[in-house]
């Protein structure tokens, strides 16, 4: 029976960050890295670019076999965990194998969910989460002329752009009133939508799908508004959920994800969780929730690894902050924090620049003289510096006017003075 | 073939050094040792001594460079006296507990003040508790022979202690006598392989911390310290047997025999005895001979080895006599007597032999101790034998009158 000092389930950003953190302190302990994928580790974020052909699927791996060897990692591909037995420090694999561990990290990420729309399950719809999905879509995209995408979140939008670049006619259906609702406000989303539309992508926001039918390789989507859309390809990108079905019966606390504390420990001894599967403290309000974005997975993975190995330099998680960077058709957008706070009351100040003609937008939200959210489209800001200003709750009362006038320069100056 | 030369005591010592093949000699001049430093230097210049000549800036460094060299594995020699020895005292005191088998001549000299450059044993006697082996020579041949023997004693595994070969400033340092110089091969065979640092080395091939802090308020530290101290005492006691054995061996090699610890002279049927140390012994023996001729049953005990103190060797000698007069060439200020006398009193207690003893102090500041002086010693000791009690020392030169006649020029 395999026995590891450290067992890591998953092989994407959170898992790899934990692995690195462990190896800094413990160069000897045995590490087993398990993935249900049949490939070397990769990032789901890269997958849309596989579809367009911008990147060769062979070139996307975050670690090659040699690097894993160098870290003396036992790498198990194509192995799916089906059950966890915390009392015996063991997990069961789909192959029937049992793996023993001393400490375990669950970094199993998220999986797509299908909306409860009649016909979706029967239609041969696609999702985009794995390399297999992406390669399949890429091959179909070469033949397909048109595609319908359900959901205008990051996955849907990324996929739309990349399918469009592959020459496919795209229609996106989004139930909410704007695209990228999780990250951008109305103005920013409007600019994104404008650019997509200019590139021939049809976007139907505020549209609910009533049912889906498929026949002869064509999917037809019926809308509540009465219209219908048809395409050679249907991609469902309406949402994801934490992949934690294997925890059934384990006794480990779960909510929308695996509940963890500020060092990524689950309710069970010697088990940690990080990344898109983890439900950790939010920076704002402190409520626990899944904050599924890539930088967050990296950070949580590092914290989990450091805690697993007992690294005394560990600083606990300061809470998840929504953040993302988004590049579309040569434009760039990013967001940090709660951009939707503008509508809230009390102590809130908003500084906005909106130049739709040049596709530019910048919004900064302050609460009690501290930056709580920034988003921008085609602005020259350093997103990482803005994130730190939010996370460190930097008091801007002395410099707010100068900051508002020149956030790029002032951000760099504050960085130099405070943490640079 | 051994050859015979005529030389003073300092040159005799230098020949002893040459024959012992040291790796390093260190010199710093001081009267009356200076000519010894010069002989050594000249011998190195002439290739007679094939050693590093460390012409350093003071006696303190003299002994310091030798300690370093010795810890690296060198056989070493130097000589000093008087203020030089005083200045050297800091490393001097440290040489025995480091168990470094350094050989050093003390060409004994009286201590200042009054300012004085002449002979006396105040220097060597003052450092008698520092842990060095002290041997006093009676004549130039004995100086040469004892320097050679000193290496065998110092480097003996059971001893591993530094040795002072002492000879009287002025009287031996400058006095010329016939001296036989043994063959180098004989000396090489006698001394064998050198052994200076098997126990404590400063050698990257055998890295160790030499002389870490040892002690503290309790526990291991002080216990270790006691171990080192007892080890030194044991080495010192072992030296008594080793000195005796080495003298016997040297007799086999050279044909010359010396009393290793003490010499008994005409003691067999003696009622009383005088006790001497160093070069005064010749005059003492002459006085004893004369007294014998006059019918006195008198003998003489010469101390050769003063450290370690030859307690058991004195047992026999003291059993034979009923009174002793001890002639010191130095002063024990705290006891108001001579130091050798003082030590004899201690010995008598240990040997359970309680006989009258008189302290004589003479030969200070270069003064000669003449046969006349010894006659006084014998007469006074005879008075003690017959019951008179002397609670004060007799200062032999106290009433010397004619300046110059009994002084030795510098």
């Amino acid at each position, binding site marked *: 029976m395999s026995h590891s000092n450290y067992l890591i389930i998953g092989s994407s950003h959170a898992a790899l960050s934990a692995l690195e953190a462990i190896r800094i302190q413990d160069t000897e302990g045995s590490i087993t890295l398990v993935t249900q994928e049949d490939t070397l580790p990769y990032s789901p974020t890269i997958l849309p670019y596989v579809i367009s052909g911008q990147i060769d699927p062979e070139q996307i791996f975050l670690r090659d076999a040699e690097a894993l060897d160098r870290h003396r990692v036992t790498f198990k591909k194509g192995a799916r965990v089906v059950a966890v037995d915390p009392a015996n420090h063991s997990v069961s694999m789909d192959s029937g194998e049992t793996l023993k561990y001393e400490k375990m990290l669950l970094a199993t990420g998220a999986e797509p969910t299908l909306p409860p729309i009649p016909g979706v399950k029967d239609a041969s719809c696609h999702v985009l989460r794995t390399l297999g999905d992406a390669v399949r879509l890429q091959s179909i995209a070469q033949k397909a002329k048109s595609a319908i995408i359900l959901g205008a979140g990051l996955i849907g939008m990324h996929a739309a752009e990349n399918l469009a670049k592959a020459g496919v006619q795209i229609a996106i259906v989004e139930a909410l009133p704007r695209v990228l609702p999780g990250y951008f406000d109305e103005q920013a989303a409007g600019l994104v939508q404008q650019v997509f539309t200019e590139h021939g992508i049809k976007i139907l926001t505020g549209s609910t799908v009533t049912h889906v039918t498929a026949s002869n390789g064509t999917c037809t989507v019926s809308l509540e508004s009465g219209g219908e859309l048809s395409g050679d390809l249907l991609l469902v990108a309406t949402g994801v959920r934490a992949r934690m079905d294997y925890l059934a019966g384990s006794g480990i606390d779960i909510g929308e994800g695996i509940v963890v504390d500020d060092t990524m420990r689950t309710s069970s001894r010697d088990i940690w969780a990080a990344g898109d599967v983890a439900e950790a403290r939010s920076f704002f309000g402190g409520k626990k929730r899944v904050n599924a974005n890539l930088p967050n997975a990296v950070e949580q993975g590092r914290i989990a690894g450091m805690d697993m190995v007992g690294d005394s330099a560990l600083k606990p998680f300061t809470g998840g902050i929504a953040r993302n960077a988004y590049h579309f058709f040569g434009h760039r957008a990013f967001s940090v924090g709660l951009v939707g706070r503008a509508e809230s009351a009390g102590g809130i100040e908003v500084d906005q620049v909106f130049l739709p003609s040049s596709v530019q937008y910048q919004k900064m939200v302050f609460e009690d003289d501290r930056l709580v959210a920034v988003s921008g489209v085609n602005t020259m800001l350093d997103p990482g510096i803005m994130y730190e200003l939010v996370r460190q709750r930097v008091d801007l009362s002395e410099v707010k006017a100068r900051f508002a006038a020149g956030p790029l320069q002032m951000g760099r100056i504050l960085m*130099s003075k405070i943490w640079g | 073939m051994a050859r015979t030369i005529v030389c003073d005591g300092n040159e005799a010592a230098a020949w002893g050094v040459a024959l012992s093949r040291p790796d390093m000699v260190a010199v710093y001049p001081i009267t009356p040792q200076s000519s010894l430093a010069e002989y050594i230097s000249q011998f190195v210049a002439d290739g007679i001594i094939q050693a590093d000549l460390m012409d350093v800036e003071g006696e303190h460094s003299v002994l310091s460079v030798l300690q370093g060299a010795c810890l690296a594995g060198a056989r070493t020699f130097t000589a000093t006296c008087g203020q030089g020895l005083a200045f050297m005292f800091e490393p001097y005191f440290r040489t025995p507990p480091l168990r470094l088998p350094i050989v050093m001549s003390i060409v004994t000299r009286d201590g200042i003040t009054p300012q004085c450059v002449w002979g006396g044993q105040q220097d060597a006697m003052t450092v008698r508790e520092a842990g060095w082996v002290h041997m006093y020579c009676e004549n130039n041949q004995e100086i040469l022979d004892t320097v050679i023997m000193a290496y065998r004693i110092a480097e003996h595994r059971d001893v591993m202690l530094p040795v002072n070969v002492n000879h009287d400033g002025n009287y031996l340092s400058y006095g010329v006598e016939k001296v036989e110089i043994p063959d180098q091969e004989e000396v090489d065979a006698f001394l064998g392989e050198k052994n200076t640092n098997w126990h404590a080395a400063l050698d990257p091939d055998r890295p160790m*911390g*030499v002389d870490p802090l040892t002690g503290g308020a309790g526990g291991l530290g002080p216990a270790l310290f006691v171990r080192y101290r007892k080890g030194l005492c044991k080495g010192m006691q072992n030296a008594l047997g080793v000195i005796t054995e080495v003298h016997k061996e040297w007799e086999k090699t050279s044909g010359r025999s010396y009393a290793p610890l003490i010499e008994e002279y005409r003691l067999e049927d003696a009622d009383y005895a005088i006790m001497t140390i160093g070069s005064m012994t010749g005059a003492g023996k002459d006085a004893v001979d004369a007294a014998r001729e006059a019918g006195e049953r008198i003998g003489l005990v010469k101390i050769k080895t003063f450290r370690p103190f030859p307690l058991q060797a004195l047992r026999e000698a003291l059993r034979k006599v009923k009174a002793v007069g001890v002639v010191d060439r130095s002063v024990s200020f705290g006891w108001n007597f001579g130091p050798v006398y003082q030590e004899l009193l201690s010995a008598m207690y240990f040997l359970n032999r309680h006989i009258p003893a008189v302290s004589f102090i003479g030969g200070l500041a270069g003064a000669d101790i003449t046969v006349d002086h010894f006659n006084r010693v014998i007469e006074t000791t005879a008075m003690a034998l017959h019951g008179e009690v002397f609670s004060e020392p007799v200062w032999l030169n106290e009433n010397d009158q004619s300046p110059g006649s009994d002084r030795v020029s510098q």
Partner: protein
Amino acid sequence: MGKSYPTIAFYPDRCDGCNQCVEACAEFHSGTRNPAHSRIKVSQDGEEGAFFLALCRQCGEPRCVPSCPAGALKKDIDTGVVSLDESKCVSCQLCTLACPYGGITYNPITHQVMKCDFCDGDPVCVKACPRGALELKTGSDIYNGWGDLEDLFVPGISACQGCNSELLIRHTLRRIGPNTVVATPPGCIPGVGAVGFNGVTATKTPIFHPLLTNTAAMLAGIRRYYNRIGRDVTMLAFAGDGGTADVGFQSLSGAAERGEQMIYICVDNEGYMNTGVQRSSTTPYGAWTSTTPVGTVLRGKSRDAKPMALLMVMHNCEYVATACMTFMEDYYAKLEKAVEAAKRGMAYIHVFSPCPTGWRFPPSKLIEVGRKAVETNMVPLWEYEAEARCIDFTHPVEDPLPVKAYLSLIGKYNHLDEEQVAHIQRKTDERIETLKKFTREGDVKPIQDAA
């Protein structure tokens, strides 16, 4: 053991915002001088006038690298550079969100992110800066050069927090290596257990306590014997200022005059720290010590320090230098020369060794105290090579800070009145003038054979 890498240091007070670094960077990377292509970004605080830099730090544990979903960013183990493989980059910009330093930025012309690539190891920005505001710091070369060698000093010794001597010993022994005999006379260094306690030692080379008075003499004896038997063993002293300038001066002077082959390092903490902070002849004027106390009558030491290093220049030494651990590269360079010089004769290094405990300053300020000492000219860094017969300043301070900038950091100078500070300033200025006389340009040459 890992590697350490060079970095680009920025000195804001030397920057005048000329932007030549920015233009040079843009030109090197794009062929045009358009600042949009520059990886180095200079910002000015309009209110304070000061300049700030945003530039990739080539972090040891970069946040950008693990945040790249394409595996396009890598920390190069050989050069330390965080490199961007543009063929893999999909311009997702997540790296710009991960970096807290503004070190990786979006180029609106190429629509790609860009970052400093160190220009193949020879950054053009550094060369372009006319005011020395950018410096390529290769202090890490020391680590790369010697980091793989064994630390010959055990961990866990009982030195005070922030002890300069420990820093000094570890570096020195690592560089000089195990074929060495170390002498360290009574003082802080054996006091922390360097030679050992009760039968165990803290040093992996042969090491011993000489007397406080005879360090140089004992080493001379050892070295001479090794020469005699044909072994090349390095003699190294770590002696305090007391064992060097006071009671050990005679034996040092003699050994130097005789040309004894050794590296003699005086660890000058300006007094007898190990015995409770008493004055020595290198205690500076005005300094409080427990034997130059501050009261209504006395105001600290009333005499100036003995110029020990300069005295050694007049001592037939092969090499004499002053050093300060804040300037580690400078020290290593000097150690290098000392090792060579000690094959011919005496190499003497006078190490300024601030003592947090005895001088009354926080341990965290050790390096800053060293820096200020040098930048005020209180501790000029120079070296003397017998062959050159002159002194060279190794870290010339053209525009020295007032001595107060140094004195105010240290508790032992707290009591100084204006007159005393003025005295120290005057003496500091005079000392530099004296030293300058011995430089190549000066009118005095310390000619050994003239003595």
